[in-house]
C-alpha cells in the first residue's frame, strides 16, 4: 500500500511547503557579502530559458545578476527568474534519502535506499512481468537526464511504459507538427517575431506564462505590425492587441476554420506555394467550406466582422505568424486545434520565411529538449519513432542491445495512471512529476497512487505525490547539475552547475546510474559525468529529426546556443526550419490534415451550464512544488481564485472576495471570487498550481485527445454558487503581507 504514512497536516509540518523569504544568511548580514563567482546559466522556470547569472558564495546561490549579453532575453526576467534562487538553502530541502517508516519517513543511507528500490522493482517485475513497472520523467530535467530516464526504463528495466509530464504540455502541438511538417519544433526563432506584420496569438497567456515574449510582440507593433489575440480571457497583453477575438472555450478549431474559409472565399491563399510544397489542400478546403463567418460566429461567440477582419489581416500581410500554447492544446481535440492554425499558415504561404510561420510556445523548462531524446512513450532519441525498424536498429547499436530487446510503445502519462488504478501496473518510479496536482481528476490519481505495490520518487522537495512514496531519493535542483536543455525556439543551451547538492542529496543522473548498476546493467550505464551522457545522446540522435551530433558544450558556450538540427561539428545549426518550402517528410512536402470540430469530452448541459478553464499565474510554475516554497512568489498570488464576469456574478449574488463553489461532474472546489470584466460571462477560470482542497484538478476530467493523449484541462462543464462558508483550507495562515499584497489585485 502506498497511502501517505502521516496525516497531511503532519507531513506539511515536517516537509512544507514552508516559505523561504531571504537569501542565505538573511537580508542584512551574511548576504551583503559579495559573490565569489557569477555563473552564466538559465532560469529553471519555463521554456523561454532566459539567460541569468547566479551569484554564488560558499557553495550557495545567494542571488542573481541579469545576463545582458544573452541574445534571447538580454537581461530581462520575470519574477520567477528574479526569485528562483530562493529555492536553494531551503528548509524543506531533502538532504538524504527517505524510507517509509511506521511514523512517517525516516532518513536512510544511499546503499539501503538504492538496494531497496532496485530489489522492489525487480520483485514486482518477477511477479507480474516487466511491464508491471512504469517510469515517469519530466520536462524540467536536462536533456541528459531525459535521455537517461528513457534508456533506464527500456534497457535497465525493460518496460515499455515510460512517459513524462510533457504529456500535459506539448504533445498536441508535437503531434500536429509531426503529422504536417514531419518534425516537432517551433519552426521560427523568436527573432522572427518583430519582423512579422501580423501576429495572431491563440490560447497563449504570453504575459504570465512566457513574459519575455511580450517584448518581442511590442517590438513587432513598434515596427507597425498588428497583434490579434484569441482567448476567452483578456490577458494582460490584450491592452495592446489590435484585434481581440473572445473565443468560446473548446471552439478554437471552428474559429480557425472560419478564418480559412474567408481566406479561400476571397482568393487570398497562396496557390503557388500550396501547389509546390503541400499535399492535402483540397480536402482541407472542402472541410472549411461550411464554416462561413455567420456559422463560425454562432459557435465561437466571435463576431462575424472580427472573423472577416482577422482573416484579411493575416492573409494580406506579406509576413504573418501564428503563435499558440496550451489554450488551444489542452483539449480532446488539441491536435485539431493546432492543425487548424497550421493550415491557415500553410494556405497563406506563411512558413519557412523570416517573420512568417506557425510557432508553438513550449511551456516547461526543457519542454522542447525533454521530448526529443526518449522519455516519451512512443519515441527514441533524436525524435525518432519507436515503431520505425531503422530507428530501433540505430539506437540499439548505440545502446549495445539487440533491437528486438527495445520495448515497443507503451502507455502515455495519464494512461499509466489509469493502468495503475485498474491494477495492471503495480510499481512506479517517478522523477520531476507531481501528478497528484497536475493530472486531471485528482481523486482518481490519489486512489491509483494508494494502490501501488511500490512507489519510488526522486525529488528535491517532498511533493504532494511523494507523500505516497515508499522511498524518496534526494535528488538535485537545476543549478546543481551540468547539462543542456533546448529552449522554446529550438536553441540548445548550456545549464552550468553553480553549486553541488547540499547534505547527502545527490545528482539525479548518479541515482539512475546506481539503480541501473543494481539491476545488473552497469556496463550500459558507465557514465561518470553528464558530458558522457551527452556524447552518447549526440550519437543516438545522429541522423534523426532532432539531430544533435554536431553540438558540444564548448560550441554552445561560444555561439550562445545552437539550433538543431546540427548534424556535424562544422554545421552552423538551423535557427529557421522549412526554408525554401522543404519539409521533413520524405517527399519534402507539408502534409495538410483536415481538422474537424467536435464537442468537448465534458459537455455543458442544464445542470452544468458554464465552462471551467484552468491555467497559470505569473508567479507560479506548474504544480508549484518549487514556487509555492518561495515567499515573494507566494505573496504575489497566495491562493487560487475563481475569476468570473460581473454579469455572471450578479446572477448568483456574488461579489469579489466572496467564497464561491465551482462544481463539476467530479466534485466541488471552494475558493474566493475575483469578479472581473476580463473573462467571458459563460466561463470561469481557476489557476491550477495548488494541491489538495485548493486543487483545480479536482474538477477536471480525464478525457484525452485520441492522438496526443493530452487531457482536456481547458474545458470542463461546471456550475457555480455562493458558498455557505469558507473552506477548511482558508484557515491556513498566509505569509505576512500576502493577503494585503494580493488585495491590490482585487
Amino acid at each position, binding site marked *: 500500500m502506498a497511502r501517505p504514512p502521516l496525516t497531511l497536516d503532519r507531513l506539511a509540518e515536517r516537509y512544507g511547503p514552508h516559505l523561504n523569504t*531571504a537569501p542565505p544568511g538573511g*537580508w*542584512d548580514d551574511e*548576504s*551583503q557579502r559579495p559573490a565569489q563567482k557569477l555563473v552564466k546559466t538559465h532560469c529553471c522556470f519555463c521554456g523561454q530559458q532566459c539567460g541569468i547569472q547566479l551569484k554564488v558564495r560558499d557553495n550557495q546561490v545567494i*542571488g*542573481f545578476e*541579469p545576463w*545582458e549579453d544573452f541574445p534571447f*532575453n538580454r*537581461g*530581462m*526576467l*520575470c*519574477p520567477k*527568474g*528574479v*526569485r528562483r534562487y530562493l529555492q536553494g538553502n531551503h528548509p524543506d530541502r531533502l538532504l538524504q534519502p527517505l524510507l517509509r517508516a511506521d511514523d512517517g519517513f525516516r532518513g536512510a543511507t544511499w546503499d539501503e535506499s538504492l538496494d531497496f528500490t532496485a530489489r522492489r522493482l525487480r520483485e514486482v517485475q518477477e511477479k507480474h512481468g516487466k511491464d508491471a513497472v512504469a517510469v515517469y520523467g519530466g520536462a524540467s530535467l536536462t536533456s541528459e537526464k531525459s535521455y537517461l530516464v528513457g534508456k533506464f526504463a527500456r534497457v535497465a528495466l525493460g518496460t515499455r511504459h515510460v512517459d513524462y509530464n510533457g504529456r500535459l504540455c506539448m504533445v498536441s502541438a508535437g503531434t500536429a507538427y509531426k503529422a504536417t511538417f514531419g518534425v516537432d519544433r517551433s519552426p521560427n526563432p523568436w527573432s522572427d517575431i518583430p519582423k512579422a506584420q501580423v501576429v495572431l496569438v491563440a490560447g497563449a497567456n504570453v*504575459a*504570465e506564462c512566457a*513574459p*519575455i515574449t*511580450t*517584448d518581442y510582440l*511590442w517590438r513587432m507593433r*513598434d515596427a507597425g505590425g498588428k497583434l490579434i489575440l484569441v482567448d476567452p480571457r*483578456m*490577458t*494582460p*497583453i*490584450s*491592452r*495592446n492587441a489590435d484585434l481581440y477575438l473572445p473565443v468560446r472555450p473548446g471552439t478554437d478549431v471552428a474559429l480557425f476554420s472560419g478564418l480559412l474559409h474567408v481566406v479561400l472565399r476571397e482568393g487570398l491563399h497562396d496557390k503557388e506555394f500550396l501547389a509546390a510544397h503541400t499535399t492535402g489542400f483540397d480536402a482541407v478546403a472542402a472541410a472549411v467550406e461550411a464554416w462561413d463567418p455567420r456559422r463560425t460566429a454562432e459557435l465561437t461567440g466571435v463576431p462575424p466582422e472580427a472573423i472577416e477582419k482577422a482573416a484579411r489581416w493575416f492573409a494580406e500581410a506579406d509576413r504573418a505568424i501564428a503563435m499558440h500554447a496550451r489554450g488551444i492544446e489542452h483539449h480532446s481535440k488539441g491536435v485539431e486545434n493546432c492543425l487548424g492554425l497550421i493550415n491557415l499558415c500553410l494556405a497563406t504561404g506563411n512558413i519557412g520565411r523570416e517573420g512568417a510561420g506557425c510557432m508553438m510556445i513550449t511551456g516547461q523548462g526543457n519542454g522542447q529538449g525533454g521530448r526529443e531524446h526518449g522519455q516519451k512513450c512512443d519515441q527514441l532519441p533524436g525524435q525518432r519513432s519507436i515503431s520505425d525498424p531503422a530507428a530501433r536498429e540505430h539506437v540499439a547499436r548505440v545502446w549495445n542491445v539487440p533491437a528486438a530487446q527495445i520495448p515497443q510503445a507503451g502507455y502515455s502519462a495519464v494512461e499509466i495512471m489509469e493502468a495503475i488504478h485498474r491494477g495492471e501496473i503495480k510499481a512506479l518510479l517517478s522523477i520531476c512529476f507531481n501528478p497528484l496536482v497536475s493530472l486531471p481528476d485528482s481523486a482518481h490519481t490519489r486512489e491509483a497512487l494508494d494502490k501501488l505495490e511500490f512507489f519510488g520518487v526522486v525529488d528535491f522537495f517532498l511533493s504532494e505525490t511523494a507523500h505516497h512514496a515508499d522511498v524518496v531519493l534526494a535528488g538535485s535542483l537545476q543549478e546543481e547539475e551540468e547539462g543542456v536543455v533546448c529552449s522554446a525556439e529550438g536553441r540548445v543551451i548550456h545549464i552550468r552547475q553553480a553549486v553541488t547538492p547540499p547534505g547527502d542529496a545527490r545528482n539525479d543522473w548518479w541515482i539512475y546510474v546506481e539503480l541501473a548498476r543494481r539491476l545488473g546493467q552497469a556496463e550500459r550505464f558507465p557514465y561518470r559525468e553528464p558530458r558522457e551522457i551527452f556524447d552518447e545522446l549526440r550519437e543516438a540522435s545522429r541522423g534523426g529529426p532532432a539531430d544533435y551530433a554536431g553540438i558540444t558544450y564548448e560550441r554552445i558556450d561560444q555561439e550562445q546556443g545552437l539550433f538543431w538540427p546540427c548534424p556535424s561539428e562544422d554545421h552552423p545549426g538551423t535557427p529557421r526550419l522549412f526554408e525554401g518550402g522543404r519539409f521533413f517528410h520524405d517527399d519534402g512536402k507539408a502534409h495538410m490534415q483536415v481538422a474537424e470540430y467536435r464537442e468537448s469530452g465534458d459537455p455543458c448541459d442544464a445542470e452544468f451550464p458554464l465552462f471551467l478553464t484552468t491555467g497559470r499565474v*505569473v*508567479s507560479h510554475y506548474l504544480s508549484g512544488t518549487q514556487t509555492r516554497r518561495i515567499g*515573494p512568489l507566494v505573496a*504575489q498570488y497566495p491562493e487560487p481564485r475563481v475569476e468570473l464576469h*460581473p454579469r455572471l456574478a450578479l446572477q448568483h449574488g456574488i461579489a*469579489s472576495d466572496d467564497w464561491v463553489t465551482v462544481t463539476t461532474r467530479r466534485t466541488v472546489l471552494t475558493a474566493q471570487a*475575483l*469578479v*472581473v*470584466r*476580463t473573462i467571458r460571462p459563460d466561463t470561469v477560470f481557476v489557476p491550477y498550481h495548488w494541491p489538495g482542497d485548493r486543487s483545480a484538478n479536482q474538477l477536471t476530467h480525464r478525457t484525452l485527445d485520441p492522438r496526443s493523449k493530452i487531457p482536456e484541462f481547458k474545458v470542463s462543464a461546471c456550475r457555480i454558487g455562493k458558498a455557505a462558508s469558507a473552506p477548511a483550507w482558508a484557515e491556513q495562515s498566509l505569509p505576512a503581507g500576502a493577503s494585503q499584497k494580493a488585495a*491590490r*489585485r*482585487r
Partner: protein
Amino acid sequence: MSEYGFFVDPSRCIGCESCVNACAECETHRGHSMIHLDFLDRRETIATVPMVCMHCDDPTCAQVCPADAIKKGDDGIVQSALKPRCIACSNCVLACPFGVPKVMVKQEQMMKCDMCYDRTSVGKRPMCATVCPSQALAYLPKDLIQIGRRETPVHGFRFGRQTVTTRVAVMAPVGRTEISLDVADYLWEQP
C-alpha cells in the same frame, strides 16, 4: 550616442511585478522594494502601473522636508533621506505628487528609488529597467526611444496649480508634451 534616460510606459506593463521583486534585491535596501505596482481597478481592467521615483527638477519631497534631509545630486538624482538628518516625519510621503517615498519604520528613515546609483555609476542599467520583460520600464539613450517607439516621452505633469518637471519620462500618446488628468487644468480661470 545621446544621454541615457529613464522611460516609464504604463501601457506596456503586464503587472508581473518583476521590477518589484528585483528592486528588493538591491545592495542598498536589501529585502525592501522601492517600486510601487498598482492594479488600477482589477474588476474593470487588467491595466497595471509601475511607479518609480520621477526625480523631479525641483523635488516636492525636498521642499517640504523640515530637516533638509533630501538632496538632489548634480546628476539630477534625488536621493533617499540622509540618515542622521531624517526624522521620519512622513512629510515627503504625504507631499510627493507621485506617491513614491516610503518611511522605513525600523530604521526611521525615508527611502526611495535612487535609480540604482550603485549600478548606473558603474555603467549598468537600473535593475528594474534591466529585468522588465515588457518595456514598461526602460533605461535607454534618449534618441533611441524616439526612433524605436511611437509614443512621446513627457517630462511635465500638472497637479492642480503645481507643474512638475521630471528627469524620468512617461511615454504618452503621440503629440503630448505634458500630462494632466484634471479637467480643471484645461479650463480658463481668471488669475
